[in-house]
């Protein structure tokens, strides 16, 4: 993945790939707890709308391909048109792909924020305490670095946040 180095990419260091530890949490309390447990480490947090018992999220932009017929009114999803079939992909697979290229050991917290009505409440803990404005959001905890909504779909931006020094 470091690939061939042309002059314009010469500053990317060819270091051995780093590892990440994944932690899955639901809700703000669990998130806060996970952060405390991993204090001192580099933490990336991905916030997604919660999945139901069947593994489907109310936020199609956030998750793995919920393919199917029919249109989504999400402006964020990538679409490929093949006659009548629409394959919709949210940000999660793109983020996970980007995560593989992280250049320092870190912790990846995958956080389901709650159901739709909880998320819509302007006073929920994520909005108040973490200043989140939308899902999906990927942030590097403790820094101003974050990617919001369609930014999470862009491989070049993901590369930037995951390979920061």
């Amino acid at each position, binding site marked *: 993945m470091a690939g061939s180095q042309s002059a314009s990419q010469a*500053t990317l260091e060819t270091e051995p790939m780093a590892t990440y530890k994944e932690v899955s949490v639901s809700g703000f309390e669990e998130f806060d707890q996970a952060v405390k447990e991993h204090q001192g480490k580099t933490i990336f947090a991905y916030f997604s709308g919660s999945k139901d018992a069947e593994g489907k999220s109310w936020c199609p932009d956030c998750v793995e391909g919920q393919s199917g017929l029919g249109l989504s009114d999400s402006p964020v999803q990538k679409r490929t048109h093949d006659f009548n079939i629409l394959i919709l992909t949210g940000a999660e697979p793109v983020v996970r792909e980007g995560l593989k290229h992280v250049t320092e050991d870190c912790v990846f917290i995958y956080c389901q924020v709650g159901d739709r009505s909880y998320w819509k409440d302007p006073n929920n803990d994520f909005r108040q305490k973490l200043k989140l404005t939308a899902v999906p959001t990927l942030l590097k905890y403790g820094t101003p670095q974050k990617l919001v909504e369609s930014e999470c779909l862009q491989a070049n931006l993901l590369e930037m946040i995951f390979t920061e020094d």
Partner: protein
Amino acid sequence: MSSPPGRRARVSSPGTSRQGSDAREEVRRRLKDLIDANRVMIFSKSYCPHSTRVKELFSSLGVDYNILELDQVEDGANVQEVLKEISNQKTVPNIFVNKVHVGGCDRTFQAHHNGLLQKLLQEDLAHDFDLIIIGGGSGGLSCAKEAANLGKKVMVLDFVVPSPQGSSWGLGGTCVNVGCIPKKLMHQAALLGQALQDSRRFGWEYNQQVKHNWEVMTEAIQNHISSLNWGYRLTLREKGVTYVNAYGEFVELHKIKATNKKGQETFYTASKFVIATGERPRYLGIQGDKEYCITSDDLFSLPYCPGRTLVIGSSYVGLECAGFLAGLGLDVTVMVRSVLLRGFDQEMAEKVGSYMEQQGVKFQRKFTPVLVQQMEKGSPGVLKVVAKSTEGPETVEGTYNTVLLAIGRDSCTRKIGLEKIGVKINEKNGKIPVNDVEQTNVPHVYAIGDILEGKPELTPVAIQAGKLLARRLFGASLEKVYHTLFWPLEWTVAGRDNNTCYAKIICNKFDNERVVGFHLLGPNAGEITQGFAAAMKCGLTKQLLNDTIGIHPTCGEVFTTLEITKSSGLEITQKGC
């Protein structure tokens, strides 16, 4: 060397008409620059039919070319001789493609027919980038975004050499990190403090003693700045601009060396360059200045409250900092060598000074510091400053927690290898002279922003200004100045001097009383001025102002009812509305 006005785009003029080997050297260098910097370079004569055929050939191929018409430059004969030395060809047209000498008209057409020309055209200069910009501030970033929008391959190099006190910051340049943005935020913090004080008179009751916490303010400001730094990085990445956090300097005409903070060196090439390196605060050159003094580079991220502060310098940087520091409740003294706000309308400058004095800022006028000594270490410590009078032998000493230097800014043009590629700078102030298209004397190198040397305008307005200046010096006054004091409604608290705020316009008597100057001392001055600035560009006159209905109650409406001229000598203190 700038292109003479009227000769744009396609025609360049390399030399002066000096004789001698110096002149030849310069011509040779200039020709080499033209050949290097242009994909297709044609040395031609405007009346020559062979030259015309060649130009038509390239046009038909859709290929851009640069021409030098030797019959239209002063030393065309000289140029033609030097061309012969370089290329062994004494005739024109003389064509170079990607630095390779193709020949005259016949040889060029031959090359076209046998495919050699195509081959030469395709071997692009093989530069890494179309454009490399050194400096990621206001100028550099806007240039980068625009170039990227136009489809060019762009790199931005930005690097902050830490200040003597160790301060550094992220992408965005002075304005975002250590200039306008944090200054305005600290100013706002001070205004809010003032508002709190006034609030009691408007009926707000609270028991808590109101204090200011410097660290809380600074952390909030730095967080905001960090999010701006990140935002710029996102924008550059989204537009496909390569950003490197490294110190850029020229090593060859088309090559720069980039050194990152770990000392690693990488090299990049580009067809064109933009220098946008901006400025850094100047130091005094006296004992103790770099070790103990801070500047605006350090103030906005200072991790402790500066305490009792001496500001040295009466530029707008110095006075603005003194203003908000005093507004936050600190003990502030400003040391002034000569006048306040040099270059500004001095009547306004003095009014600003008086207002600040009223607010408790102390001024030490006509002194200049000679040494700074540390009496106690600490955050902040205690510093002793010895200053000499500019008018006599008197010296004064003072002790302060912090000394803030604001005596000017120097262009960052002396250590970026400009001498290696022949870019001329003004040796005195480091600024770079450019022509009307921001081009330096080296054709593929441009410069923008604070480092530019001021240029005289050659438009009719400027000619008019010259005429008016002569009249002003030797003839009757051509200005009519209207002014008034005013009293902002928001300020109606007991004990406040209601004759502080001042408005003034300057009108040209010989041009329909067109408004040529606008001055305002009062709250929200910036917000108010913006609209009037646009109006002035539309040709605002005194009559138009009079015909404009004022919005009541505002401060700005005062400009629609100005009646008293300075020359009349009449009283201007305001009464009620």
